[in-house]
């Protein structure tokens, strides 16, 4: 196992200062459920010399509705997010996604921020945050910026987070009352497993049955996390009929192959993406 120094930051300001000084030499640890595995597998980058523990920072904990925007501080555990009444009421999908991560033991420690910045293909909360059009607040000692989550994932397991930055908050505007949402995770066994595919869909229709908004993200399908814009475009403004859902599913599969190419798993994932996209759309859309 690699060896590091360890330091518990007392304040966010202190943590940011250390990051400013040490940059790549620091690995942030909060819940620890991903980082400790990397430590065990000797998988941290060679430059890392210090584990900077920000799990004690109260200023990074809590969920609130602020000026109509849901704000989840980055150090909030997945369990707290899943149990939060505001999240359950306002997000439609985030509590389900948070609840799908690992086991209760893991959720009692792991954070949403950790789930995001680790950027694993199978991260469960990311598709939900993508369809919620979440914004990430990234802070450094000298700067604070807001990055839309669909600009955050820049490549396989790579994010826009700079070495001197901390993800401090995740914000999203709650979808309105017209929205319905669904989160579906495909696993090889019935519980506590990495997602083989993780779909999240939000949709809103007007009284006439026209699709006013449609947002789709599928984890473990693309080289890096993102939405499925061509599928969303296909159905926007349309009065949905059953065969269109099938078409949308097919387009989801084709989009996946267009963006990521044909891979060893495509023979399986292609039909499943098609099938599950159709299934999820049927759950959130009223079909004429």
């Amino acid at each position, binding site marked *: *196992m690699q060896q590091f120094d360890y330091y518990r930051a007392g304040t966010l300001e202190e943590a940011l200062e250390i990051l400013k000084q040490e940059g790549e030499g620091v690995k942030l640890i909060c819940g620890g459920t991903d980082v400790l595995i990397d430590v065990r597998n000797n998988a941290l980058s060679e430059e890392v010399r210090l584990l900077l523990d920000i799990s004690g920072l109260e200023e990074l904990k809590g969920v609130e509705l602020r000026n109509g925007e849901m704000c989840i501080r980055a150090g909030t555990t997945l369990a707290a997010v899943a149990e939060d009444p505001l999240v359950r009421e306002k997000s439609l999908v985030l509590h389900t996604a948070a609840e799908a991560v690992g086991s209760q033991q893991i959720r009692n420690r792991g954070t949403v921020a950790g789930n995001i910045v680790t950027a694993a293909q199978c991260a469960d909360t990311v598709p939900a945050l993508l369809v919620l059009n979440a914004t990430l607040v990234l802070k450094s000692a000298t700067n604070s910026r807001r990055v839309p989550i669909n600009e955050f994932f820049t490549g396989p397991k790579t994010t826009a987070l700079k070495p001197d930055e901390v993800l401090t908050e995740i914000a999203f505007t709650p979808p309105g009352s017209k929205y319905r949402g669904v989160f579906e995770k495909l696993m*090889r*066994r019935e519980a506590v*497993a990495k997602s083989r595919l993780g779909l999240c869909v939000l949709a809103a229709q007007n009284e006439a049955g026209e699709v006013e908004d449609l947002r789709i993200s599928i984890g473990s399908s693309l080289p890096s996390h993102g939405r499925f814009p061509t599928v969303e475009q296909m159905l926007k403004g349309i009065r949905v009929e059953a065969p269109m859902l099938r078409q949308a599913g097919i387009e989801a599969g084709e989009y996946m192959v267009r963006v990521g190419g044909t891979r*060893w798993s495509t*023979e399986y994932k292609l039909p499943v993406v098609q099938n*599950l996209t159709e*299934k999820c759309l049927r759950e959130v859309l009223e079909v004429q």
Partner: protein
Amino acid sequence: MSFNVVGTHSARIDAYEKVTGRAKYCGDINYGNQLYAATVYSKYPHARILKIDTHEAEQCEGVVAVVTAKDVPASNSMFGRFPVFAEEEVKYIGDGVAAVAAESPEIARRAAQLVEVEYKELPAVLEIEKALEKDAAKVHEDAEDNLIENASHKLYYGDVRRGFESADKILARSYRTHFVDQMYIEPEAIIALPDPYRRGVEIHGSIQNPYSVRQNVAEVLGLKYSRVRVVQSTIGGSFGGKDESVMLMAARCALLALKLNRPVKMVLTREESMLESPKRHAYLAQYKIGVKKDGSITAVEDTIFTQGGAYNNKAMFANWRGSIHAAGAYRVPHVKNDVYGVYTHTIFGGAYRGFSAPQIVFALESLMDEAAAELNIDPVEFRLKNCLKPHDQLPTGQYLHPDKIPANLESLILDVCRRAEYQRKKEEYDQFNAEHTDEKRGIGIAITLRGTGLGGEGIDTAGASITIEPDGSVNIQSGLIEMGQGMRTAHAQIVAEVLGIEMERITFSTSDTSMVMDGGPTVASRGTLAGGMAMLNAAEKLLSRLKDIAAVELGCALEDITLDNHRYYKKEDPKKYCSFDDLITKGYRERGISLSAQGWYNPGPEPLDHHTGRGNAYPSYIYGAAMPEVLVDMRTGKIKVEKVTLAYEIGRAINPKIVEGQIYGGFLQGLGYGLFEEIEQRDGYVFSLNFDDYLVPTVKDVPDFDLKIFESASKVGPFGAKGVGEIGVELAAASVANALYAATGKRLRELPLNLERVLIGRALSK
């Protein structure tokens, strides 16, 4: 017949320490001045070792020694061709090349990384078919080819040519199964202590077979057996996985302990355990069956190759059992079974609960379903017609005489059909399937017969010891081991029943090679069958002595003494009795009669000719039928096993709750095996090394079980208990594969039945 203790849900006598956290598993135990050892593992699946440089590792602060093959005192070669340390060649990715002893496990592992080994990589033979090719590289140079020695077994009965000639239809099918791991939650742990009194070593650990560890370590060290004492620690699950290859750890720690004169402890990481421990043999089973239009079977012929990996850990035994059972629970007039073991440069097969049965049952029960489908006969009907019945003869020539060996398959099949409402469900599911495309439902069946005990595999002996202490407490010790299956409790119940005492009086000592005669391994579900008979033997000896003491006290003949309701009394005069404690006072204290006895079970070798395969393969058989109901998601390939109706005949349930646990637990392991457990291997390297990638069943994967235990007038085993530890695993994969076919019309002939296979018909790999 009714008993006081046998047949009741007695609480386990080893549960208190487990629920309180007080139970000490080997990893929990520490000795003063102990060192920690770590093994240096191979970097390649197959390579020549050119040079080993331990210098840098030795220089590490806290490292006390680094040893290799040259440091092995007497013999570097152990059972099954295993080397303590690979010397000239590494033959698979988990071969140990050296070991480090250091003041902490972290230092030991860090230093192990610094041992420099120069290798010349060699091509690796990785698959059964490749290993069998004429010019294939030999995994073991001195062997003739890649067939594992003594692991080729055959069973011929009748004339299959005639059988096929008389068939209306012949089906030839090939089935394939994969390596899986026992994944006991407790990783292997060993502590070796230098023993100055024996001028040898004392070894503690998570050891399923203390006697074979003793023998192998003794030979490695060049010591007589009595100078190596092996004491079994509480084991956190084994299922066969800690049956032999822990001797590698034991040998490494023992030689270090002797060399350094300090205790040496080694606890494997999960990743190391995955590499170094045995797996369930992967199978390539080629079957041919002949059937008549009326549904009767005319012949079964099979050639089965079992992938043994780099070493011969159990292939010879497992393959023998496989050869006996390859034509399964059926009346087949002409049988030709050929089973072979194959070496490859991969992780190796060994003992895993079931020991050839889950693989063979998957192949055979799939084949039976395929044959039934070919004839347009319902699979249940097909089995009712062809299953073994009382008075039938097995392919070895053994008869299933109802008063000696009951054959209850028919009643088990009818029972599960009744409880599961087979006909009604079949119709309901057919209707459902006609109306739905996204999901399908199906109900399937599989049956099995399993020879109990070691049978012709070896001599089924076992030892036991009971001491009644002066104050009336009783201590028991078995030569076989407890690994969670409940053996100790079953033994205690037997003793309590025979001696007419309360369970609370009984404590147990852990298995210790220096205390009880070597009776062989705790395998083949014989903990109760053989171990229980030994305990029964010891108890009956003591009973006889106690009755004798009572006879003297009560002034009557021995035959007049009756034991009932904890009292020893004269048949005609129940008011005059001796209590158990009275007898101790009268017999031991006043007359000096020993109240300690050794028990031994030795049924003698089964009358079986190993050359012709004729005779009695096993003293008796146990039976099972499983009927699962599945829901298949056709969009994703996911199988959900919703309900399983089970029936097993096991002779007698000494403790019904424990029996239930063995069957549910075994079946669940079988479900993991059949549905999603998989070791990811590429080019001889192993990639799924821990619980995140190697998935085992969670609580949510448990189906709704409906189990009925059948008992019979068994003459084998204590109170007729024939054993139950393994049979649970056998039927899961097979019955679910059949239910999947019923649901979807898809016949999968390869395990596991994972998402990809169900959806697209084949597995995918990186």
